[in-house]
């Protein structure tokens, strides 16, 4: 049994071992091993030239990573917390995302940006945000998130192998979740949605930190006689919705669960596409459960903000009420 944080560490280590062009860079990633210890012991193993402790400047991390990528390296950047990515926003959205297109395909930018995201750890301001939509909305980026150690291990390696920039969101409150990791072979590609458990009455879609919530919801529903199919998106851009449509056509009811604010969140896009593709199969409108459209609240109020088991069950009740 391995924690999700350790699984990412193992994925990084394997990528660093297999390809000498892979670098890890960010604030405190070297000697300290990162504030969440995700990069622990990498610097002692691979040296200061490959595991780079950077000055405290996020735009600088991304901007220099772009230059390193242009020189043939594959940098994996760490942004220490979700709310600190904004100083690097221009470098990510205007530079990194567009450079392949504006070079008419001649330049490749294999840069991975790791972002620990989401709330639930009682943190201070700017340390609990779910800002994946900004990046999913930007053409030229790929955006993924893992929900369990096995995916964390393999998706990190797959992201590093991608010749496109990948924003890799890590569910920080699940860093300590433990599960088995199969080091032999990945079960899925980087951009594939997983059906976590099958069901026949309702499809519950989630990703990242709320997948565990969704599994708990399905267990409660099972006791109430409702069979819930749980899906873990894994890939936020491009979305892999074919399995979602298939599930929606089977169950006729869909609830989408994520931590990010619902307004213009990924749930809105998914609901829209399900409506376009599965209109005649639906028995109820597609419902969303998510964060409120407010700044992330202080820690003593975050349990109200985070979509939990009860709020999800409430949405499921509403879906069945139609």
């Amino acid at each position: 049994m391995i924690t999700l944080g350790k699984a990412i560490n193992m994925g990084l280590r394997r990528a660093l071992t297999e390809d000498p062009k892979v670098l890890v860079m960010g604030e405190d990633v070297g000697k300290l091993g990162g504030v969440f210890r995700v990069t622990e012991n990498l610097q002692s193993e691979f040296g200061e030239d490959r595991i780079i402790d950077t000055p405290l400047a996020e735009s600088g991390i991304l901007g220099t990573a772009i230059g390193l990528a242009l020189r043939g390296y594959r940098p994996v950047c760490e942004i220490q917390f979700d709310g600190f990515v904004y100083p690097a926003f221009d470098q990510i959205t205007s530079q990194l995302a567009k450079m392949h297109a504006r070079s008419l395909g001649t330049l490749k930018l294999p840069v991975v940006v790791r972002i620990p995201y989401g709330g639930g750890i009682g943190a201070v301001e700017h340390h609990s945000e779910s800002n994946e939509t900004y990046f999913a909305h930007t053409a030229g980026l790929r955006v993924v998130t893992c929900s369990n150690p096995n995916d964390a291990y393999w998706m990190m390696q797959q992201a590093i192998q991608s010749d496109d920039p990948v924003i890799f969101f890590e569910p920080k409150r699940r860093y300590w979740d433990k599960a088995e990791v199969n080091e032999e072979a990945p079960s899925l590609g980087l951009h594939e949605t997983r059906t976590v458990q099958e069901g026949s009455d309702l499809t519950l879609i989630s990703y990242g930190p709320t997948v565990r919530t969704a599994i708990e919801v399905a267990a409660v529903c099972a006791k109430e006689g409702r069979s819930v199919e749980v899906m873990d998106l894994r890939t936020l851009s491009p979305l892999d919705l074919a399995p979602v449509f298939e599930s929606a056509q089977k169950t006729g009811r869909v609830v989408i669960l994520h931590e990010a604010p619902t307004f213009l969140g990924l749930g809105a896009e998914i609901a829209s596409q399900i409506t376009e593709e599965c209109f005649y199969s639906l028995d109820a409108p597609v419902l969303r459960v998510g964060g409120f459209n407010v700044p992330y609240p202080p820690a003593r109020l975050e349990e109200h903000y985070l979509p939990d088991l009860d709020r999800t069950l409430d949405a499921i009740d509403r879906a069945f009420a139609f």
Partner: protein
Amino acid sequence: MSELQLVQILSPEGELLTDPEYPLEISTEEIRALYRDLVMVRRFDVEATALQRQGELGLWAQSLGQEAAQVGSGRALIPGDYAFPTYREHGVAWAKGVPPEKLLGMYRGINHGGWDPRDNDFHLYTLVIGAQTLHATGYAMGIQRDKSNNAVIAYFGDGATSQGDVNEAFTYASVYHAPVVFFCQNNQWAISQPIESQTKVALYRRAAGFGFPGVRVDGNDVLAVLAVTRAALARARAGEGPTLIEAFTYRMGAHTTSDDPSRYRLAQELDEWKLKDPIARVKSYLTRNSLANEEFFAGIEKEAEAMASKLRSDIIDAEDPYVEAIFDYVYAEPHPILDAEKSAYINYLESFTEGEKK
């Protein structure tokens, strides 16, 4: 180092000076070649400006007056040295061998940068002010890791020194001793804002605060720029880290063809700078010392006219991009959603053609 330091080797009157700190070994043939570069680059810029006025380009950013800063620094580079330009570095592109017509593609709206940067080690023009200084620093960090003997040069303007990215680039390059030369063309104006609105100290002195040397050079003196840039590149190659060069020059034209400098600066200022013209002083030097005759100058004029004429026909004849190009280069690897969007739009377009056939 006084506030008024200014490295100069060729005076505005064309008198050859010596600077003990920056000795320059250069043959007459090399000076004649630099003269040709300067004339060609100015003629290129004049033609592009005319093309914009005639509606063939949507916009043009003139390099008029900055030829010596660009040619002198560009000619200091050796093969494998990588340059990160802004959108005005036409003279550096010339020195690097980028085909001139390719620089016009983005200004005509054909593309966002129509050359392969790897062909000439000359990156695409960057429009977000200062962003490329970090790319240059990262590239230099790569050179360090490759243990290569090359260096990087990052171009930016006086206005860019107010940007966070430029200051972050200074910090990164300094602490990592990255082999990068920061080449700031202080052309005195950031659109309508004079240098006084960006800084309270001479820009080259900023470097001291970051822990590396800064030098101010007469940006209209191609020989001084060449000498100073060579020295900075040599320092970078020796593992001694970055240098900030402030090339003191003047934007003789507008910011771009959409700008109207008469609204914010005096014609008198322009007249004063005309006396320091970067091309006239080289011509004066060559003539005064009988190092070139009328035939030489006429030959270059003729060559410049031919280049301008070819530039004009090349860009007017340039094919518009095909529609699929919108989708084709966004990702390096397959992207099913973009593929679906592209084929749906192509089918939509074809539905009109089918109607016409009926």
